[in-house]
């Protein structure tokens, strides 16, 4: 089943090229790019889904041509097929959405670059998922970074977009350095770049490799504190690209980590503990910062840090359980983690698309300038609500199923393990619970402030519903969220093979009775809602149902500006966490007998950025500025450098000769 996937990659690149050729006409470029991308996603997604369901994923392909280093070696196994499915589903939806979203740029700027780089980005992700050669993998990895860089800087005339792009590029390149070292170690100093032959030469080196993978792939995945680029880059990109980046691109880091783990041989329980800790910190810090954001897309980006953290915790628990030989617990945990990868792609894609529709309709991402959009764009509001309920992990939607599997795994680990590993496995539960509770606060706040209440500005008042293509993409995403939530047994058949490949061949699949329990609860819940709605309708029929203004506790002239804002909604939540989420306040109080001006300003900092990376980079700049003395700007000084270097080299070469 590899051939259709390779065909899809070729189709993506061809449609990207066609978009460039047709760049003169925005309409033609967007059309050909969208059709090519959707067709490729249908072919590739269908092929990977088929491979997972039939269980015949393992196929390989080697080109009869080898570039100087490495070779063109592609392969498909259950793990690749599962991630390919995520990439193709989310990319297909994002492409449909983009067909509507990019229309707003017609005549204002050429859209062909966005269309072409979008195709390259999807192709690069698919290529790195099928790469079975270290060099090929890294080439695809870099292509992914470059394509997404150009997408992030699409609106490059804006200063903050350029800054975000630069941060993204630097962070990606710093991360990839760790991957170069990782692959060099795994290839045993370049002996073989083939994935089949790669592996550490000792246990100690395996741990080093794990550390390198956590930092290198963790930078792409957005583990705290390596996430600093993520909340800058994701909001800056056009919304369908944000959906793609947050939905699947950061999961390439998770894939890389899993692929590396499978090359390292039997895992160490300590690695699992590290992943649980890193994931727990990412989850809680991510969602706390999300609550603190006023910018809707920035809030969603920080929430991606949270969700990647949940995936990392699940994988960590799987590693601990596998190291101790508890295959069934590992199976539950890894299934939960992988399912969360797919789920997050779906609901984060949906939420970013909803945020894009809001931006499209009002021109602002500042939640405190929005409000009351539910009346003006009811469809988008309903879709955003589905995404919000799903991302909080609430039944009967898909987010619940993934988190539920992880919880069940952890509950079982609590009684079957002892010692430090059990602590590592169980500490996951309160961390996940806290992150879940904070996520509810984060997304009720986002949904409520943006879509409910009264519009806070005239821009929000004039909002309009999103165009059909955007609505269609959101509807499909929401349907997938509902379907997985109500019928988890179905999606577990897709996740199962990939999880089994990671845990080991002897692992039993998740008990079949369990997901049906979730189905039953979901159906009873839906029935209860319908029954109570019916009762309520019957009771109210024929009775006096009046409309009035909102009760303002007797105040007669309320204004929309008096509503709770996103900032005020999050304030009591952040108060207990202030040291972790630094809030910088500046205040100029009223002065004098007739004060004219008073202002209060709050800026939410990021501990990792403010305290770790900013000082580190400042130090680096200072250190390099010392080297400025060498750069005298006079040619004869540079000639002297050349002479000195030559003499030193000669002396070094001639040492030892009589």
């Amino acid at each position: 089943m590899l051939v259709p996937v390779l065909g899809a990659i070729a189709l993506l690149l061809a449609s990207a090229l066609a978009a460039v050729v047709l760049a003169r006409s925005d309409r033609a470029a967007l059309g050909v790019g969208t059709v090519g991308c959707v067709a490729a996603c249908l072919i590739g997604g269908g092929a990977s889904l088929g491979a997972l369901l039939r269980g015949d994923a393992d196929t390989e392909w080697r080109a009869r041509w080898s570039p100087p280093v490495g070779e063109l070696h592609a392969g498909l196994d259950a793990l690749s097929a599962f991630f390919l499915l995520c990439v193709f589903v989310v990319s297909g939806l994002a492409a449909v959405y983009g067909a509507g979203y990019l229309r707003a740029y017609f005549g204002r700027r050429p859209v062909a670059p966005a269309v072409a780089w979008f195709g390259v980005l999807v192709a690069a992700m698919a290529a790195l998922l099928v790469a079975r050669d270290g060099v090929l993998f890294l080439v695809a990895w870099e292509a992914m970074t470059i394509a997404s860089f150009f997408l992030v800087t699409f609106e490059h005339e804006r200063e903050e977009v350029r800054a975000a792009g630069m941060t993204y590029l630097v962070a990606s390149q710093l991360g990839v350095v760790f991957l170069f070292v990782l692959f060099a170690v795994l290839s045993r100093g370049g002996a073989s770049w083939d994935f089949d032959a790669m592996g550490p030469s000792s246990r100690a080196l395996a741990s080093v490799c794990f550390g390198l993978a956590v930092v290198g792939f963790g930078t792409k995945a957005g583990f705290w504190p390596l996430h600093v680029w993520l909340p800058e880059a994701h909001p800056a990109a056009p919304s369908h690209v944000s959906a793609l980046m947050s939905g699947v691109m950061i999961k390439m880091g998770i894939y890389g980590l899993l692929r590396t783990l499978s090359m390292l041989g039997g895992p160490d329980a300590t690695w699992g503990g590290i992943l649980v800790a890193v994931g727990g910190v990412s989850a809680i810090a991510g969602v706390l910062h999300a609550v603190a954001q006023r910018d809707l897309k920035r809030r969603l980006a920080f929430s991606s840090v949270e969700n990647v953290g949940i995936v990392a915790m699940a994988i960590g628990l799987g590693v601990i359980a596998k190291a101790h030989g508890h295959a069934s617990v590992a199976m539950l945990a890894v299934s939960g983690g992988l399912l969360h990868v797919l789920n997050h792609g779906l609901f984060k894609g949906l939420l970013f698309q909803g945020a894009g529709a809001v931006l499209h309709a009002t021109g602002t991402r500042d939640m405190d300038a929005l409000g009351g959009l539910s009346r003006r764009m009811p469809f988008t509001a309903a879709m955003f609500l589905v995404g919000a309920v799903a991302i909080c992990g609430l039944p009967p939607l898909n987010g619940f199923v993934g988190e539920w599997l992880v919880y069940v795994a952890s509950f079982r680990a609590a009684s079957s393990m002892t010692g430090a590993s059990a602590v590592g496995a169980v500490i996951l539960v309160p961390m996940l619970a806290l992150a879940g509770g904070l996520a509810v606060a984060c997304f009720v706040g986002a949904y409520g402030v943006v879509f409910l209440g009264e519009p806070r500005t005239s821009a929000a008042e004039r909002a309009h519903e999103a165009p059909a293509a955007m609505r269609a993409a959101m509807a499909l995403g929401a349907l997938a969220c509902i379907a997985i939530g109500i019928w988890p047994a179905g999606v577990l058949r897709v996740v199962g093979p990939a999880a089994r490949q990671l845990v080991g061949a002897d692992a039993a699949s998740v008990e079949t009775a369990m997901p049906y329990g979730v189905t039953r609860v979901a159906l009873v819940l839906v029935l209860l809602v319908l029954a109570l709605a019916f009762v309520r309708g019957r009771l109210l029929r024929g009775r006096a149902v009046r409309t009035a203004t909102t009760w303002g506790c007797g105040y007669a002239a309320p204004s929309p500006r008096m509503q709770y804002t996103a900032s005020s909604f999050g304030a009591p939540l952040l108060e207990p966490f202030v040291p972790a989420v630094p809030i910088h306040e500046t205040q100029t109080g009223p002065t004098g007998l007739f004060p004219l001006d008073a202002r209060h300003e709050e800026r939410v900092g990021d501990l990792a950025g403010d305290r770790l990376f900013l000082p580190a980079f400042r130090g680096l700049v200072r250190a390099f500025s010392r080297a400025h003395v060498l750069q005298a700007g006079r040619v004869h000084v540079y000639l002297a450098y050349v002479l000195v270097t030559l003499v030193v080299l000669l002396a070094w070469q001639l040492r030892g000769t009589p």
Partner: protein
Amino acid sequence: MSPAMLAVHVGMLVLVPPLLLGVIGRVKAWFAGRKGPPLLQPTFDILRLLRKGAVYSKTTTWVFRAGPTVALAATLAAGLLTPLASSSSPLGFAGDVVAFAYLLALARFFTMAAALDTGSSFEGMGASREAAFSALAEPALFSSLVIICVPAGSASFEAAWRALPWASWGSAHPSYLAAAIALFIVLLAENSRIPVDDPNTHLELTMVHEVMVLDHSGPDFAFILYGSAVKLFVLAGLLVHLLLPIPPDGGWQAVLLFLGGQVGIAVVVGIVESSMARLRLQRVPQFLVGASVIAAIGLAAMFYRGLR
């Protein structure tokens, strides 16, 4: 689950919750030296509200109307997941513990969304506080659930209640005591009771839960009152199972013991409400984190036992 047990389960779930509110009211009245309203007063209130019309703010959308319905449905579904007067429940399955907690979170989600739909700053304030407090209560709830589930080795209420080792409750399982304390604090917080919130306060600025539902009226408000009674009932049900040896296979003794336990918890809640003032709002997070710490100590004690 046999049809008879199903009938008992559903019957108790539907009929008993408002009575507990009546018991709490009577206890508080007794402490205050009053005669107090009849035990059935909350039931009468709910029935009266069901017979009324409704007033809706013109700001609100369908979310406001759906909020109480979804919240009540989710709470009732949680009640169908947790065992009452036996160890089994109509919808129980392996992993129902997690579904139970998340159904309560779903109820909260829609209550808060409905509050924000009114566009009132008071209701926004209530939703914001509710969000903050319930997020902080979540780790305590889940840690207690882990403690309860460890002996059974499964995230299922039925297995947990069957495996609870009664013989060694006091001596060998201080963890259960920690879980019980943490669960009781969660119960007070989740049901907006003193010392977290005062259900009888009359100043909107100091309210948490009550201010979120200011604009609801008629059947919607009846759903809200009834839903909060059901929530108190199902959370108290966990405590009853933890503290009393309910016969796992049901029977009239189980029903009597369970109802006795429920009344007991309602009395304790009434005593707490009568003997304490509510905490300052800034103190509430400390109180809830304290519950999480107690539960964490319980967990640690459990693993100390395992390490032995």
